[in-house]
């Protein structure tokens, strides 16, 4: 790659050495980071959540935080030291020398101002241009980032733009003055795959034009597609640096290996994603690193053969011609799900993939009997399930469990983990953990959680722990079907790996059937036996996962596959 070659010859745009950042009197969250980026080069900073990636990036702009103490052996931008700069001097650098695309992309534009004005701000601050010319420049910028209808969009506010368009506007504002260095902190998180692909293309173009890019991502597949070099960060340190190919294909460090292994994309069904047993602090409420190992982790990592009888057995959950419409805020009727049918057998996973708004959640809610279909029926275990009066469904509710994207929201905030699970175990009769404590402990153990979490509230658990509690709750009534709506979308890759492994173990042990929803093809490819692709309310393609992914028939599926970044070169 050209960028990599350039890195050797020219003076680096950014050179950091021995950077330390601490907040207040706490231990440093960035601890001796050194890195450099050459013009036209893209350096990717990867690592688990909380490893200090964002703090490093913000420090380059002098925005580490209010109570941050920053020390470094060197912090140079195009040869100029940034240490001890005055506020004024910093302001001269921000936006002009370094552009920043913030991690919270969707909230990074002022919702009250037209995006055109937001972009023009950079020009206002750093150039003497009169407002009219700024306006023209902004339109040029918007065009250059591929914004459709730039005149209209410039006048709209961020709330009126879709996520992808917002991200483009944000990029436009960051590159307004063509800064030599662009820092992109998770630029594609929370975007649909197809949109993500377009954003990555855009970054690629910038890099080709000579802009140095510091890309921060936890998604190795994204990194693979665009970066020249990778720096792997863990607990405030850079543990490994090297070219993309070297690091991702021949990781030297155990940490990196684990990270690479956790990526589900391209991994066959049943292959373990998470690391082997690793001692970890179960009480850590901080996040990813607090995730626990599954008891089943000792199971050999091997592609597991699917039970052959699964395909033959009678379907457990079926939907026939399901249609459901909603009335939009402007009163118009809109079909969220149209004529969708599916079959789910015991021990089998049906993956449901599609873009945002395609109706995945609606279909899941129809299957759960939380929504009544306008037309069509759902059958559970050969008997009618929906539409039916809720009263008649209630006795058989224990057959179907659900796991949600946002586990926190799915817990009554007043209840402790113990009470949540006790309630689930006892069928709602007892809410006192003591009554069912043995069962509780073994339930927790089955999702790899220690008994100590019983007394805590979900708010004080890490994301991975919360999702395990959610799974435990879903398992408590001994269901035969689990409906998982984006169960890992809110999780860090490594935590995601653990949860996916856990689900896999449980399926093997308990013979559960999963309806597994995700917008991430990589995840779907890894977990499902059958896959259904949804677009605009319709299931456009279904079939065995391997077949669909290898030979997609529907153009939408093809587009989805094309857009999905993969780890393999």
């Amino acid at each position: 790659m050209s960028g990599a070659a350039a890195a050797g010859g020219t003076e680096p745009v950014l050179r950091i050495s021995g950077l330390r950042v601490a907040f207040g009197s706490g231990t440093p969250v960035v601890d001796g980071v050194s890195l450099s980026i050459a013009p036209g080069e893209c350096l990717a900073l990867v690592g688990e959540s909380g490893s200090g990636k964002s703090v490093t990036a913000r420090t380059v702009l002098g925005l580490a935080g209010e109570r941050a103490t920053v020390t470094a052996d060197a912090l140079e931008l195009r040869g100029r030291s940034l240490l001890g700069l005055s506020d004024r001097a910093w302001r001269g650098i921000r936006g002009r020398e370094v552009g920043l695309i913030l991690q919270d992309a969707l909230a990074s534009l002022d919702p009250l101002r037209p995006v055109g004005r937001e972009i023009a701000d950079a020009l206002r601050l750093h150039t003497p241009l009169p407002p009219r010319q700024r306006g023209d420049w902004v339109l040029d910028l918007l065009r250059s980032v591929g914004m459709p209808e730039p005149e209209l969009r410039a006048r709209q506010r961020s709330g009126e733009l879709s996520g992808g368009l917002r991200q483009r506007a944000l990029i436009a504002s960051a590159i307004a003055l063509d800064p030599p260095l662009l820092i992109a902190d998770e630029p594609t998180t929370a975007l649909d795959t197809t949109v993500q692909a377009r954003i990555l293309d855009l970054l690629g173009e910038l890099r080709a034009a000579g802009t140095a890019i510091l890309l921060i991502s936890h998604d190795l597949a994204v990194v693979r597609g665009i970066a020249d070099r990778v720096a792997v960060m863990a607990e405030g340190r850079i543990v490994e640096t090297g070219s993309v190919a070297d690091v991702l294909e021949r990781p030297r460090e155990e940490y990196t290996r684990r990270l690479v292994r956790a990526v589900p994309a391209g991994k066959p069904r049943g292959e373990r994603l998470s690391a082997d047993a690793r001692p970890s602090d179960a009480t850590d409420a901080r996040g990813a690193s607090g995730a626990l190992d599954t008891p089943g982790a000792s199971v050999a990592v091997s592609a597991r053969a699917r039970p052959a009888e699964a395909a033959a057995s009678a379907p457990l959950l079926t939907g026939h011609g399901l249609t459901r419409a909603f009335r939009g805020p402007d009163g118009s009727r809109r079909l969220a799900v149209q004529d969708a049918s599916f079959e789910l057998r015991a021990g089998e996973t049906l993956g449901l993939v599609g873009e945002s708004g395609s109706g995945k959640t609606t279909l899941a809610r129809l299957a759960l009997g939380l929504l009544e279909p306008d037309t069509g029926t759902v059958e559970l275990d050969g008997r009618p399930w929906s539409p039916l009066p809720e009263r008649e469904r209630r006795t058989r509710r224990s057959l179907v469990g659900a796991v949600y994207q946002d586990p926190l929201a799915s817990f009554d905030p007043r209840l402790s983990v113990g009470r949540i699970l006790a309630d689930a175990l006892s069928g709602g009769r007892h809410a006192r953990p003591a009554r069912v404590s043995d069962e509780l402990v073994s339930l927790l153990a089955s999702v790899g959680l220690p008994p100590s979490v019983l007394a805590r509230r979900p708010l004080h658990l890490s994301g991975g722990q919360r999702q395990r509690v959610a799974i435990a709750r879903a398992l408590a009534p001994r269901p035969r079907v689990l409906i998982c709506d984006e169960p890992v979308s809110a999780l860090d890759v490594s935590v995601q790996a653990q949860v996916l492994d856990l689900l896999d173990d449980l399926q093997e042990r308990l013979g559960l059937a999963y309806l597994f929803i995700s917008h991430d093809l990589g995840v779907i490819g890894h977990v499902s036996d059958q896959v259904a692709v949804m677009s605009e309310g319709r299931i456009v393609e279904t079939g065995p996962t391997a077949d669909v992914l290898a030979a997609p028939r529907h153009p939408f599926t093809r587009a989805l596959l094309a857009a999905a970044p993969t780890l393999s070169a």
Partner: protein
Amino acid sequence: MSGVGAPDRGSAAAAAPGPAPAGGRGRGPGDAGRIGAAARWWASRVAGAAFVLWAVATLTFFAIRLIPGDPAEAILGGPGSQASDEALAAVRAEYGLDQPIAVQYVRQLGRLAVGDLGTSYSLREDVAALLGAQLPGTLLLAVLALAVAWLLALALATWSTRGGRVSAAVGSGLEVIAAALPHFWIAIVLILVFSTGLGWFPPISTPGVAGLVLPVVTLAIPLAGFLGQVMRESLLDALEAPFTVSARARGESEAGVRQVHVLRHAALPAVSLSGWAFGFLVSGAVVVETIFARPGLGRTLLNAVTLRDIPLVLGVVLVVAAAYIVVTLLTDAAQRLLDPRTRAA
């Protein structure tokens, strides 16, 4: 300054749209539907306003009937009048007070529907004309007080969020105390200090600007306390929001960040609370107008209720309700204008 604390993965993803239909990935605006939606919004608001006015009139009409005291007597010179039986009967006949209550109600509504508010029993003047004379004073008072409260709250909120524990504590303390002060107590203290003591402002309302100062400040102080609390909260939110970080990353100065971004966000809740603030101010006006001897709706209302002056009470209540409706309508419209996010809801 402060950074974006995004301690775990959850935060980024939770901001993205999960099952909720609002915002988020790939949903463009429906431009065509917007004009229709706006029209529908206005139509429903106007219909709602008409309903509220009708209901207010109805409730008030029957509520006054519950008040002990004979309206006929109120017409005949108020309580304690020594009106003769004949005079009372004549008045009852003239005003239709001898009719069944339902008939009276329908007649009253009929008159109101054509904009006839009737004649005040106690002041013997056309209610519409009376209110026309009283309304501007109260409105002026309320609007000025609202403006002063905004400014005070904004100043205090801005000052107390400059950083530093002391200014934060002083600021929030002042807000809480201001919000706890009864109007009449403030009025009296202000009079003592600024009229009797310093002689800067007249202790009663006079036609000029000077006469407005104390009443306006009296009304504004508690309101500023309430608004300040809300403003400060949203100021702090905005100061930590990703978009201010990205503004700083563009090279915006601290002052610029506040001016261009943060202040608008701090002002938003103040705008959306205006309807509530208006009611608060009208309640306060009853007290303030009495103390400062300002002519106005508050004082009129108090007298009218005491004197069982049905047409006047009804008139004041309707005017206040109408003003409230207009204010909330305007605030909602202003909010829709200022903040596109509210349009979805």
